[in-house]
């Protein structure tokens, strides 16, 4: 019963977040000091990109629709929502006319999802396990060394780590390709060994930079949590009872410290997502980040709107899923 109540409140929050975010997305172009349609068409023609008459016409029509410049602002707002709820048709991409925005997103999304989920899981587990060990054995030399290293890594943004890795591993020690888009040209996506090897090779650097930063983050918070729990009375009691150090560490300390880490995982979804966007651009990895970059550089507003909407939904949904799973992880959870 209490769980149902908790679930309902979480789902309400989820819809409020999406509603507010999308309202922002709707309002920003309208309150900007620039007339977006004129600015976009101006930018496109300034680039001297050749567009045929059909493309230009379709573009103007869909621009007018995207910005919904007919009718009162309230009517525009209603039709904006209708478009999103009707399956989110964002019209054609201008830069890659006549491919639809949705198709472009569909092609890029899997790349991002698998890179993100894999690196998040790896860094979260590594950070938690190693953080629990160093937090529990806080006086060992390796604990101090690891803490100092993580202290240096943690505040550095993803793309700076990415750039450093490129400088180190592609330029100074040429081990990895400078930049290749996901898989080499001519290799068709399939479940052949060549393709997989290719993907692994190009995904390695972006994945490594995401794991390094993520590890620093999770490690430090787990380290601090374990230290605090290690000073609790029930831990001293376990020591008196004669349990081994390892038993105490995993059964008492880690079990309790994991809980806040699950919450933190939900809260950091947004950060991880933005981090991966930039990392993809750095390594020309063919995910959503790279697509967004192309959308920005070619002033492809439909594509931008599509990606931004998807991002809002994806991050909000990920948070909701973690929130719903949380009570199953933590038996003591107080359904707020």
């Amino acid at each position, binding site marked *: 019963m209490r769980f149902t109540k908790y679930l309902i409140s979480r789902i309400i929050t989820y819809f409020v977040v999406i509603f507010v975010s999308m309202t922002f*997305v709707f309002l920003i*172009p309208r309150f900007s000091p*620039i007339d977006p349609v004129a600015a976009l068409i101006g930018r496109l023609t300034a680039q001297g990109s050749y567009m045929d008459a059909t493309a230009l016409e379709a573009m103007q029509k869909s621009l007018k629709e995207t910005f919904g410049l007919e009718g009162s602002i309230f009517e525009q707002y209603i039709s904006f929502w209708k478009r999103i709820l009707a399956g989110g048709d964002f019209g054609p991409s201008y830069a890659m006319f006549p491919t639809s925005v949705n198709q472009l997103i569909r092609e890029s999304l899997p790349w991002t999802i698998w890179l993100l989920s894999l690196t998040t899981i790896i860094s979260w587990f590594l950070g938690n396990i190693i953080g629990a060990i160093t937090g529990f054995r806080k006086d060992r030399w390796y604990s101090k060394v690891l803490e100092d290293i993580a202290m240096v890594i943690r505040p550095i943004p993803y793309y700076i780590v990415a750039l450093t890795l490129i400088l180190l591993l592609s330029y100074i020690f040429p081990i990895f390709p400078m930049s290749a888009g996901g898989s080499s040209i001519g290799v068709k996506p399939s479940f052949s060994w060549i393709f997989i090897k290719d993907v692994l090779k190009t995904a390695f650097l972006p994945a490594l930079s995401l794991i390094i930063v993520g590890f620093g983050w999770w490690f430090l918070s787990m380290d601090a949590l374990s230290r605090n729990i290690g000073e609790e009375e029930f831990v001293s009691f376990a020591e008196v009872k004669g349990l081994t150090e390892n038993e105490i560490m995993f059964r008492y300390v880690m079990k309790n410290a994991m809980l806040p880490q699950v919450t933190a995982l939900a809260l950091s979804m947004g950060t991880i997502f933005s981090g991966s966007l930039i990392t993809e651009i750095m390594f020309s990895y063919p995910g959503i980040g790279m697509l967004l970059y192309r959308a920005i550089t070619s002033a492809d507003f439909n594509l931008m709107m599509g990606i931004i909407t998807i991002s809002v939904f994806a991050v909000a949904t990920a948070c909701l899923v973690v929130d719903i799973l949380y009570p199953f992880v933590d038996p003591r959870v107080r359904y707020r």
Partner: protein
Amino acid sequence: MKSKRIVVSIWDNKRFVVGFIMLMVFVILGFIVSNFSPYDPRSWGTVPEELPPSFKHPLGTTSLGTDVFWFLAEGIKNSLIIGLVAAVVGGALGVTIGITAGFAGGTVDRVLMAITDTFIAVPSLPILILLAFLFKGRASIIVLGLIISIFSWSWPARQVRAMTLSLRERDFISMAFFSGEKPYKILFVEIFPHVVSWTIANFINAILVAIGQEATLAVLGLSALEEATLGTSIYWAMQYQAIFRGLWWWIASPVVAMIILFVSLFLTSKGLQEHLASGRS
């Protein structure tokens, strides 16, 4: 009734000292040294192109004919300004909203926290990208700071509220309340000083986040590209493929500067937090 305790100086905290000294070097570089630039660091073609570091150009020159060192000094200044604007605006908003919510309670609290929670959960990067895209070419350094501050107030607001709630329960607040003090006076005279120390650590953190976000926007080509910031330094180096063409000093300088700046900010705020935690009984 103040209990006596041994006062430990902040200067005994190694992390804080290291971070603070590095930070001061950046402040001096950005706000003092940058004024001695022999030419406008942003204007192209003032120096010979693509020279490696030398005595005359300590960090070399770019393909645009600008001097890496002077551009960087100017960039550090502007990045710090962006960080300060976002931290001041976001911090002031956050503290005000947090204290108000925690102190008022009831409906006011619920409404304010609903808004705050929404802002915490809203994915900020996509919306910042959209904003910056429409401002492109028009955003000044200050406007960029303001844009970034739209999302930098929510988390502090939540934390300040939690602190206010715990402070509210303490004796001296009830004392003040029952002796007929006005609520706003209690707010600023009794509660605010307790929140101040935490605010400073949070403030430094906000600067760090804002500088990082500007650089993120710059990588996407959405910052104030005609201005010098740490982000735009990286942007231009990437536009001109500095890495692939062997102009390592062009790309490495802003990257290394940024790493050192971030680490120094982080150590300063971490050291402060540790110091505060040890000082509380």
